[in-house]
């Protein structure tokens, strides 16, 4: 049986790996953007990005010094054998990954301004829970969310009469205003729902989807295509130097709305979209995003 200690170690390994190695879909998207870029300055920026990815992997260094706020998404079965232990496991794994990688300590006390030094603090790391009935397994995802790309994130409630077009305009205006600041090419998550908090949560969750993935609902998938095209029409390019790729992708998540509200959340991520997922059952841990870890460590306990 997978023990508390084993799962702690595996999650720490996953977090550490996510800081060093980008997911394959993000790497591929950046390579493609480099290849198709005509603007010579933008091409150089993409080259630095790709060189940096290589150096980080070769030297096992975090690819960006801002190793982010750690946000964990847990999708656990009601009968998962370590369910109640997960908050403590995640806390311990965070401390371990911070020391071993090393990650930058990014948890600052709201009142005193003091950095805790180990990425643990009030309500941090943040955990989002979903419980699956009658299941015995769990999927645990970590997002390393950089600060610079968080600055443009917003939630706003508009009159439903303005429609989804009105909501998507907010995302376009946001990426326009943000310019070079969030380290474009960005990925943009848009959440549409009844209240600001729901829209924002959906927007953030949308950032977890792989580049190129489309919403299963056809109408939403079409909106994603249009939004991506619109964002790239802005021409900010990588790091705002001009160019054809301002956004690597746009993902939209929806919920039913209130008759009187249309809330929109916009979450932006930098080019270094760092995330990783593992699946744990009673007797096995499997890394789903960074699959090479399964070969290195052996998938089982």
């Amino acid at each position, binding site marked *: 049986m997978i023990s508390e200690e084993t799962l702690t170690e595996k999650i720490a390994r996953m977090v550490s790996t996510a800081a060093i190695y980008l997911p394959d879909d993000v790497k591929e998207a950046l390579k493609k953007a480099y290849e198709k870029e005509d603007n010579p*300055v933008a091409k*150089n*920026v993409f080259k*630095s*990005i790709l*060189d*940096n990815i290589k*150096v*980080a992997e070769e*030297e096992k*260094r*975090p*690819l*960006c*010094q*801002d*190793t982010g706020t750690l946000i964990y998404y847990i999708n656990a079965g009601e009968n998962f054998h370590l369910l109640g232990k997960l908050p403590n496991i995640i806390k311990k794994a965070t401390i371990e990954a911070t020391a071993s*990688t*090393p*990650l*930058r*300590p*990014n948890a*600052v006390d709201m009142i005193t*301004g*003091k*950095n805790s*030094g180990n990425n643990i603090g009030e309500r941090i790391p943040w955990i989002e829970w979903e419980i699956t009935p009658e299941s015995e397994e769990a999927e645990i995802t970590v997002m390393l969310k*950089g*600060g*610079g790309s968080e*600055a443009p994130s917003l939630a706003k409630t508009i009159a439903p009469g303005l429609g989804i*077009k*009105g909501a*998507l*305009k907010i995302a*376009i*205006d946001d990426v*326009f205003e943000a*310019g*070079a*600041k*969030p*380290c474009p090419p960005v990925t943009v998550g848009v959440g549409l729902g009844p209240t600001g908090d729901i829209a924002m949560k959906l927007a953030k969750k949308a950032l977890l989807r792989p580049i190129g993935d489309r919403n299963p609902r056809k109408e939403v998938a079409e*909106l994603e295509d*249009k*939004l991506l*095209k*619109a964002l790239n*029409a*802005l*021409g*900010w390019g990588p*790091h*705002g*130097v*001009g160019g054809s790729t301002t956004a690597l992708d746009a993902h939209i998540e929806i919920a039913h709305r209130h008759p009187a509200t249309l809330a929109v959340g916009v979450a932006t991520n*930098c*080019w*270094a979209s760092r995330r990783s997922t593992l699946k744990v059952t009673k007797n096995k841990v499997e890394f789903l995003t960074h699959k090479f870890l399964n070969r290195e460590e052996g998938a089982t306990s």
Partner: protein
Amino acid sequence: MTEYHFKTPVSEEKTRKLRVGDVLFISGTLLTARDSGHERALKYLREGKPLPVDFSGMALYHVGPVVKKEGDKWRIISAGPTTSARLEMYEADFIEKTGVKIIIGKGGMGSKTAEACKRFGAVYAIFTGGAGALAAKAVEEVIKVEWLDLGVPEALWVMKVREFGPLTVVIDSTGENFYEKMRKQVEGKLKKAYSIIGLE
């Protein structure tokens, strides 16, 4: 577009030669400061207290590095630039009062900084954001660290670097600001972007 290789400290005469679009590599001492570092430095200067390092003719990097302590030596693991826009509220004052000549960050700075660059012969240059592993490779050693009580990211790191770059000059000492021009260009494309989502 010209390529320059500077050793810090640099003279104003040299930084005044740089133009928007020029590529720059820096060797010698590199100093760092972010929000809290700027705030404390300016507070010290107002109170007439000495700063722990001399900024005149120096290069100031907006960065909060990932570091590791090995024995009594610090090692820089990853050190890409942070978003400079946050420092806009301090930088003009900082340039005027410290004599710093090269500001390095990412994402661009505003008109107050551009005006200070013009008056005092300074420049603002960018390093590719997020390229922390690449940046750290140019760091030869950490000479010292001050104000560590502000936390690792906000502390004032004094590093020795070799051929740190490529940096692209985006604000020069004529006050020209690349990102302001870019913004106007992009603004002109908003209409087209709106039309793609079906807005007139």
